[in-house]
């Protein structure tokens, strides 16, 4: 299930955000969108109905609304019988499992990983997600030479996540400078659903 927060967004933003989330599903899944007005619910319903997706909504106790769009099983025949194009690579996950790149010399390895992350910022096709774990967790924390580049990737929409257990192990829990803290469940899910995993 993908969650979209569109509270405080005026139309057409809730629909635009939801549409992007549906695109990322690659044909099947559920998108749950939170909005703060009934008109946005109705606009989401129009989009879902027109696309042939199942649609549900409810008011939440805080007075906002939660909508659910089910893509895949609920989709109309016409949509699902269309010949599928060659599977596009939509989800590229980069795994940074060490603060050095390659083995041989760690000083060189440190320079290489810095240069690798900088090179990522220069690509036309950016990765969807960067996952930092074990020694890699040091790179998203205070004192890392890569912070500016990682922040730039985040600004361009790349999801940045660092393993919480690893931060804890290295005593870096309050030193994280960019992206969110994640857990092994989410990391496993990201790796399993990726179209492409890059491990430098």
């Amino acid at each position, binding site marked *: 299930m993908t969650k979209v927060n569109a509270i405080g967004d005026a*139309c*057409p933003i809730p629909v635009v955000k939801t549409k992007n989330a549906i695109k990322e599903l690659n044909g099947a899944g559920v998108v749950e969108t939170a909005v703060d007005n009934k008109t946005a619910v109705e606009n989401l319903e129009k989009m879902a109905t027109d696309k042939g997706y199942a649609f549900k909504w409810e008011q939440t106790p805080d007075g906002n609304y939660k909508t659910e769009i089910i893509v895949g099983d609920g989709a109309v025949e016409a949509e699902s019988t269309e010949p599928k194009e060659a599977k596009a690579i939509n989800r590229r996950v980069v795994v940074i499992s060490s603060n050095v790149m390659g083995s041989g010399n760690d000083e060189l390895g440190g320079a290489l990983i810095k240069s690798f992350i900088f090179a990522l910022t220069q690509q036309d096709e950016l990765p969807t997600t960067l996952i930092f774990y074990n020694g890699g967790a040091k790179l998203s924390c205070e004192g890392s030479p890569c912070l500016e580049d990682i922040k730039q990737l985040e600004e361009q929409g790349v999801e940045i996540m660092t393993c919480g257990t690893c931060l804890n192990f290295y005593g870096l829990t309050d030193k994280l400078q960019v992206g969110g803290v994640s857990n092994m469940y989410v990391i496993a899910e990201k790796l399993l659903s990726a179209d492409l995993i890059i491990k430098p």
Partner: protein
Amino acid sequence: MSEKLFCKSGGCTAKLGAGLLSHVLERLPKAPYDENLIVGYNSHDDGAVYKVAEGCAVIHTLDFFPPVVEDPYTFGQIAATNALSDIYAMGGEVKTALNIVCFPEDGDLNILGEIMRGGADKVTEAGGSIAGGHSIADKDIKYGLSVTGVVDPKKIYKNNGGAVGDVLILTKKLGVGLVCSASRVGEASEAALSQAIKSMTTLNKYACDILKRHKVNACTDVTGFGFLGHLREMTENRLSCEVYLDKVPYIKEALDYANEYLFTGAAQKNRNYCKGHVRFENVSFGMEEILFDPQTSGGLLAAVACDEAEEIVNEMKEAGLPAEAVGRLIDKTDYEIIVKG
């Protein structure tokens, strides 16, 4: 032009829904009867008309809204063109206008200057004078005009004066709401946006000047309630009408944006307001959205005598307006509006 405005839900998309508004208005005490108040808010007309002497009535109207485009001068022009339009929708002539301004206290005054310059230029083009105004410190920008015009009481265009057989003429393309909405999320093309801006800054004076030479039974301007919402003001449970979809002028890209689901909130409010009153025959979903699309500074919608319709449309086209005969009034049936695709 380097100053840019922050657009949230600008233009007529910022209007309260028609249904919501009727709900409140219906509960207000009716004003005491005054025989000289020819048009008050007991009808759905665009402005109020008060007869001051034989052969002379004044029209009062007011309109203001948040920015709909980023350029302040253009926004000023659009807001003024939209406010002035109500005078033309009633068949009147613009005389004076007062500025209505909401502006942040710490805002850049050059921006305000540009907005007001845009407004003043349009009032001048309309043949009127800016005679004053009122400003309020507010965290969001809003601008518009209160306009006074004059009209011969016998020649007022009412919303509901149409008769069976009248032809409906629409003088501007629909879809400006969708284009502005797509532009807010960075999905509108340059070409579509400039077409929408040109439309929103075209005074309805030119269409009105042509209508005045002919027999007009009813007229309104198409703004926030969309084409179908305003059309309902004309049928008013008394008549029905047919709309010929292939005749309806619209900005082509707006249909693409509707098909991309870049809807405004206001179009959905308009759809709810018209629920049960409109029958669509072979109309695609995207075209439905165009017909419900809220128009900032939209065109005039006139019901004219059948035998003059063609001539009127031709004269308007010669004047460079994208006018079309889009439908006709018919005897009342189950639905107020039937759209034939």
